[in-house]
């Protein structure tokens, strides 16, 4: 299946921006089920785009304008070929006691250390009894599938009520959130049960009835022994398949926000952006198109006030 992804962002600043440096983590990765065939990235200022691998090994675009500006638009177009596959066919069903023993071994825990530890956004509240329990009798995969369904059925998709750093106790209490929140919860519960699980950032080709953040989507990948990494989308109660186009993964959202940037200006700003994913089968009118005007879910954007904050008092301590 061929997909075209069209990504557009517009940043308007109240005051001139003196200096800025952006990183876009929006390029679909090449992996077993998807091939990036074409990538074009442009901006309205004509600043040359740098391509660079970030600390976790994912390709990024970087833009650092050398002139003062108030408005900058970014536009990316990707063409991705995605295999059509049935994730259930890849599963290797086997005696789950072997798998459980493997999860308990030190070798396994050390190898998968990064995707077993909790982070601020994937930390389960201590006081609360775990709201979902794994069934020792069934396979790890079946448990993960049940967890996926449990999240889908228990929590309501509601945008604009949570932030990128909302913690899980809040999600568990209010029982609503967006794909990032559900994915964080999925990661936390799976890791709690010893299954290495990573947060995935990517695009969702929205078929009829799919829920998603209208911009970039998030789901989880768990390491199922004997099978490998399997994608679970708790927002839609699906296994990740041909409609899930992966960009990057990490421990949580903070490892893979689509945009990170350092911007030196004094005033506020408005940012709008949209993502359009179309398949060769779609006609343009069927493609899901949505606009957003928000700070939330946008990425880690830090705005520096000029002169202020340049010399933080509580900076790093020497030893």
């Amino acid at each position: 299946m061929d997909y075209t992804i069209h990504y557009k962002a517009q940043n308007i600043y109240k005051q001139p921006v003196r200096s800025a440096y952006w990183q876009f983590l929006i390029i679909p990765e090449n992996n077993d089920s998807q091939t990036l065939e074409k990538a074009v990235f442009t901006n309205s200022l004509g600043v040359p785009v740098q391509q660079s691998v970030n600390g976790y090994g994912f390709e990024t675009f970087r833009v650092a304008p050398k002139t003062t500006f108030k408005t900058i638009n970014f536009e990316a177009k990707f063409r991705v070929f995605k295999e059509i596959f049935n994730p259930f066919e890849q599963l290797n069903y086997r005696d789950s006691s072997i798998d459980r023993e493997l999860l308990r071994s030190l070798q396994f825990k050390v190898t998968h250390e990064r995707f077993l530890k909790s982070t601020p956004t994937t930390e389960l509240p201590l006081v609360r009894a775990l709201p979902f329990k794994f069934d020792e009798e069934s396979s790890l995969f079946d448990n993960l599938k049940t967890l996926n369904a449990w999240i889908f059925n228990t929590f309501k998709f509601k945008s604009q009520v949570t932030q990128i750093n909302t913690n899980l106790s809040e999600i568990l209490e209010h029982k609503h959130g967006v794909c990032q929140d559900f994915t964080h919860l999925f990661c936390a519960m799976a890791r709690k049960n010893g299954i290495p699980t990573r947060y995935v950032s990517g695009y969702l080709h929205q078929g009829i009835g799919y829920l998603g953040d209208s911009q970039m989507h998030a789901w989880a990948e768990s390491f199922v022994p004997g099978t490998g990494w399997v994608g679970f989308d708790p927002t839609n109660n699906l296994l990740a398949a041909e409609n899930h186009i992966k960009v990057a993964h990490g421990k949580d959202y903070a490892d893979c926000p689509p945009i990170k940037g350092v911007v030196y200006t004094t005033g506020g700003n408005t940012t709008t952006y949209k993502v359009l994913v179309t398949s060769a089968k779609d006609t343009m009118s069927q493609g899901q198109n949505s606009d957003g005007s928000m700070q939330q879910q946008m990425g880690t954007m830090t705005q520096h006030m000029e002169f202020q904050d340049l010399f933080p008092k509580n900076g790093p301590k020497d030893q």
Partner: protein
Amino acid sequence: MPETQHPIFSSYQKDNRFYDEIFDQEGNVKEMYKTLFDLYSGHSVQDFAKLNDKAKASFFNQGITFQVYGEQEIKEKIFPFDLFPRIIAPEEWEHIERGVLQRSKALNLFLWDLYHDKKIIKQGIVPLDLISSSVNFLDQMNGIDPPGGIYNHISGTDLIKHSDGNYYVLEDNIRCPSGVSYVICNRTALKRALFGVFNHYQAHTVTDYGENLLQILESVKPNGVDEPNCVVITPGVYNSAYYEHSYLAKSMGVELVEGRDIFVEHDFVYMKTISGPQKVDVIYRRIDDLFLDPLEFKPDSSLGVPGLFSAYKKGNVCLVNAPGTGVADDKAIYTYMPEIIKYYLDEEPILNNVHTYHCSRPDELKYVLENIDKLVIKPVDEAGGYGISIGNKLTKEEIEKVKVTIQAHPRKYIAQPIMSLSVHATYIEETNSFEPRHVDLRTFTLLGKDKEFVLKGGLTRVALQRGNLIVNSSQGGGSKDTWVLK
């Protein structure tokens, strides 16, 4: 006792609970200090008061100051310098030098392992928890091969001399150990004030530190670079060690830069100069890991350079020390140093470790809670002597408070027996005389590609308050010139 005849030593009260570096058990001056002692005894009290003022003024005028955190306003202070030097005998130094080098090498191999195969954890020698719960373990460093295979190019090892007369290592500092500029400035100040005294001893020079540091930096240049351009990056003038940053840049003859002076383009690092961008190959960074690159670490850091980590990962620039070294100088890791040395070097540790109780282990936690009055409680991840509680100095209420804190976060604390730091004759302004004060020793070890160096000397830090055991400069300590004899 003969020394009481000299007025400046009249209020020197010997305390046999501590190892005295100058006087033996009977109160006689040790052989090594005799010449010095005689020379000093010849001076009057007034002479000393005058010399002391001169030394202080010289430090202030040179701008050799530091700043203290945690106070409402930032205060610029001079690091009090003591006129009575500490002397270390050649054979004693040889032992220290071999010991600190051994530790630095073992830590370097440990770091390589932690960021590659993690064999020492897979074999159960160091617990997995120590890295998975460490904020200083950087996931981004996994699989990166730093140039020359070196992580801790610069190590500052803190040693004390216990009442048994043996040296013990208190901690290994392998993030941004500071203090070396004071070592050199102390020597300069002492030679200025008391050249006639210095001349009577054959002490090793300490002024070769800068050239050795530069050689270390150049030895870890990126592949394909012939003549590397090295710089020192500082958080800026408000950092407590800014003087040192500028001093080191000057003594190496390289540029001192701040984050805003350099930029990254296509994974190469450049310095802004009046004649255009100039490529930078090796960066001695005095900025903490999390402030290095806002794109990779703390997004609100304005001290760092966007894109720096990618340039490092690609091998286009070398960062000194490597990011992520902090995981190995965690005080909880310290307690595994004997095992770490044996594992990687197949050698016995040359220097002693202080026995440590891990509050994360239930039986040891129990002991700690029952014996707080005999122990020093330390947080595992604070630098600069912050957050330390010394058991026998606490009131009952304070002990209860400490107990609650430890029980709430056992992983965050370790406890050690109260080590009695040796004492050294120290000039005290208030009494206009020499009194015993506790001292420690920070040594500086450099590791490069096919090169190693230990500074023959070190920073002897003095706890200026009577009876105080914390010698850190942030906590109001002073320092002494330290002579390693030839």
